[in-house]
């Protein structure tokens, strides 16, 4: 009866093709309801953020290197629109996710990510890694680290603020571009940085900071490339290592990081396996490769961060001219997990107040 009804409705259009494609669509719908649409056996799907897989990023080199090592496997980098977006996407997809590996979360999101139950132990030996902190997680494998810092344009600002207080009280023309803590790990990083510095006063300080904020972007790429480098504002939230790239590759000292007296917040970026993945062996091989010397060599100038192993003298020379944090700030992952929602609500509130 459905078919007769359909026929009656469609026949005025007189296009056989349309009817057939409708039937085809119905079949396709039915087919796509199969659970777990993982790719074929030798393709490793890695969810990561855009700047990792860009031409100038570390992605291409790592892909090439790993594919050579494993023989006939392929890495499929899926570039999501922001770093924290990786976690969101995996949560949205649930157990039906296509991802085998997530790459680009950081220490701040670790406990939250683990709580989802979607991640599997990495099986990778992390004891030989050299990080500013001791590494204790079995699930996550760190692949680079850096310190959050405001990067400024020396041509727009003669001298940059030397502390948060100085930034808040800076003159009218000192505007900053920041990222949304809900979608971006640097965004969350700034939130936590101010939390670490100001504790319970953080909300107040955020409200006080509002006049300095030009805009809040979704991810780091837009903030840095599309806005900051195009001169929209003189300061942007980024990493202490960002100037290293400009000095080394662009051969310019124009962009520098502002050293804050209160200290800088540490970010360690991590990768992990998905529990639902049928290719854990391959994934593990990839994670091991990630902390291998070959892959780590791409990190300093590819991702513009510090490597997690000692590259001896292979760090770019300009990296020695980077600012040294007065102190390293870090909030434990469990504490973040317990308070993130509340802290973000606080941020939302101070940002939406007039």
């Amino acid at each position: 009866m459905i078919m007769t009804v359909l026929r009656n409705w469609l026949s005025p259009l007189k296009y056989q093709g349309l009817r057939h494609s409708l039937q085809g669509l119905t079949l396709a719908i039915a087919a796509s309801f199969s659970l777990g649409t993982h790719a074929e056996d030798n393709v490793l799907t890695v969810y990561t953020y855009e700047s990792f897989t860009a031409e100038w990023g570390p992605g291409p080199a790592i892909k090439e290197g790993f594919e050579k090592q494993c023989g006939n496997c392929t890495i499929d980098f899926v570039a999501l629109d922001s770093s924290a977006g990786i976690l969101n996407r995996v949560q949205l997809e649930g157990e039906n996710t296509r991802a085998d590996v997530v790459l680009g979360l950081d220490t701040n999101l670790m406990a939250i990510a683990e709580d989802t139950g979607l991640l599997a132990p990495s099986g990778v030996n992390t004891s030989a890694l050299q990080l500013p902190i001791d590494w204790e997680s079995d699930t996550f494998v760190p692949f680079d680290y850096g310190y959050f810092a405001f990067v400024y344009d020396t041509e727009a600002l003669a001298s940059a603020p030397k502390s948060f207080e100085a930034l808040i009280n800076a003159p009218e023309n000192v505007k900053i571009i920041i990222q949304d803590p809900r979608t971006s790990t640097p965004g969350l990083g700034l939130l936590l940085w101010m939390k670490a510095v100001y504790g319970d006063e953080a909300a107040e300080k955020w409200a006080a900071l509002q006049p300095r904020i030009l805009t809040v972007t979704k991810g780091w790429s837009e903030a840095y490339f599309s806005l900051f480098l195009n001169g929209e504002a003189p300061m942007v939230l980024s990493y202490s290592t960002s100037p290293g790239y400009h000095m080394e590759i662009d051969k310019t000292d124009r962009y520098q990081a502002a050293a804050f007296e209160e200290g800088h917040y540490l970010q360690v970026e991590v990768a992990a396996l998905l529990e639902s993945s049928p290719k854990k062996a391959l994934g593990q091989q990839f994670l091991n490769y990630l902390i291998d010397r070959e892959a780590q060599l791409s990190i300093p100038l590819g991702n513009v961060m510090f490597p997690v192993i000692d590259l001896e003298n292979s760090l770019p020379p300009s990296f020695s001219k980077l600012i040294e944090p007065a102190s390293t700030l870090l909030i434990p992952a469990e504490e973040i997990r317990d308070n993130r929602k509340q802290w973000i609500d606080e941020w939302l509130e101070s940002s939406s107040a007039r």
Partner: protein
Amino acid sequence: MAGILVGQISRLQYSLNRTWPWWSGGVVALVVIMALTIAPLVSMLVEAGTIDWKTALSDTYTQRVVWFSLYQALLSTLLSLGCAIPVALALAHSPSFHGRRFLVTLFSLSLVIPTIVAIYGIVAVYGRTGWLSRAREIIDLEPLSFYGLSGILIAHVFFNMPLATRVMLTSLESIPQSNWRLARQLGMSSLSIWRFIEWPVLRGQLAGLALLVFTLCFTSFAIVMTLGGGPRATTIEVAIYQSLRFDFDIPMAVTLACLQLGICLFLTLLSTLFKTDSDIGFENVTELTKNTASSSLLINTALWDSRWQKLASLMFITAASLFVIAPLMALLISSVNSSTLSVITDSTTLRAIANTCIAALFSAVFAIGLALGLLVSARHLRIRLQYSRSGQWLQLAGNMILIIPPVVLGTGLFLLLRPYADVFSIALLLVIVINSLMALPFVLRIMDAPMMRTAEQHDKLIRSLGVQGFSRWRHIDWPQLRKPIALATAFAATLSAGDLGAIALFGSERVTTLPLLLYQRMGSYRMEEAAVTAGLLLLLCLTLFIVLQRLIGGKNRVVIT
């Protein structure tokens, strides 16, 4: 006794003596619509049952979002209507000037232009690097802060002022000629004319129009998402989207969705009180240019002749025209730039174009199918059985989307389907479903009157000759309904092609449509690429509109507006 029984049996036989049960279309359509709207709703309410409503409602962020949604909708409505009145008056009293017809046609284009495309145009004019900012730089003024409430208001006025102007213009032009002659005879001043002739007419429309504009602004998604600029200016629809896609905060999403539902329900009920002439531009979209040409003579007798009136006219009309044309011009100009070729040939763009077309066509077909099902049954109820009320209930079902806005529906579908399927893989299907439901009220509006009209006239003849079922459709209905169906299809397809709501929720790097791509490019400040994408989308929509009308409606005049 036996006589009565025989009578009943006869009645039964009478009603069964047809080849096609009249209610079949309606039932199928109703079931489908209900399944697609009620099921997600239920899954959402089940989730809502687990929410602690007290804390949820006392959350300041939630309160602020609700307040802002209502506030910006109210302001937008006041501004749009406030600006529309003088423009409508000016147009009504200037019945002939070069380009009047073009301008009035342009005003109705806001129904067909995709929101995100117009937004791009607006950003190109008023945004940080737009025309206005550059102009201000030249005279050394600070660039305007555009994102936030001001951006939202500008965009809302851009879309709703022309709509309101058209409606008001129609009612002004329907004032009988005799009134004007009388006014002239009595030597009434312009002010008296306004007070006693024009204002009463407009006032009648105002309530319903205000409600319509308010609802549109309250549930607007693309505008607030692009121009809101942050937590400071977020409406409920956008907040739902953000809590789902940014925070994965399902309780928050459901809380907001329920609030949104409640308010929309209230607004819908309110609208049943105000029975406006439903000439909000749709079935009159084709008639209007004819009307304006002929009835412009009507107001000839009350031209605004005096110098200050002419000046006022000129001011209002020019301002309105510039306001509407500038973003479109900015869009057209900026879309041809250094990135044009690379964007057009880029595989992401091409895939997005394909997806957009698929979504548009299938949504249109689905919407038309549902509408026909409902209308055929409604027609039978209204005309054969004379149950005009139930006939209208059937059509009310078609308007479900006005109570359950797209993002809310999407949230419900997401909750419903997530345990069973990867929603991102079936994204296109979900987009098609949501967009069809979104187009359904408009499609019904366009097709309702023609269907009822032709049926009423010929009902007895059809019955006496026994033309029924497929025959009736093929020989009687289709030839007469071809054009409205063509317009409805074209409209539904264009609406779906240009939509940002559903795809924002379910889109991903795997499944993108042009609107989403445009939004992403704008969000990454890749303005040149965005410009080309906007131009492509506009072109696609116009093409779809024209081609579908031609294809389905047949030859003769192409009724674009």
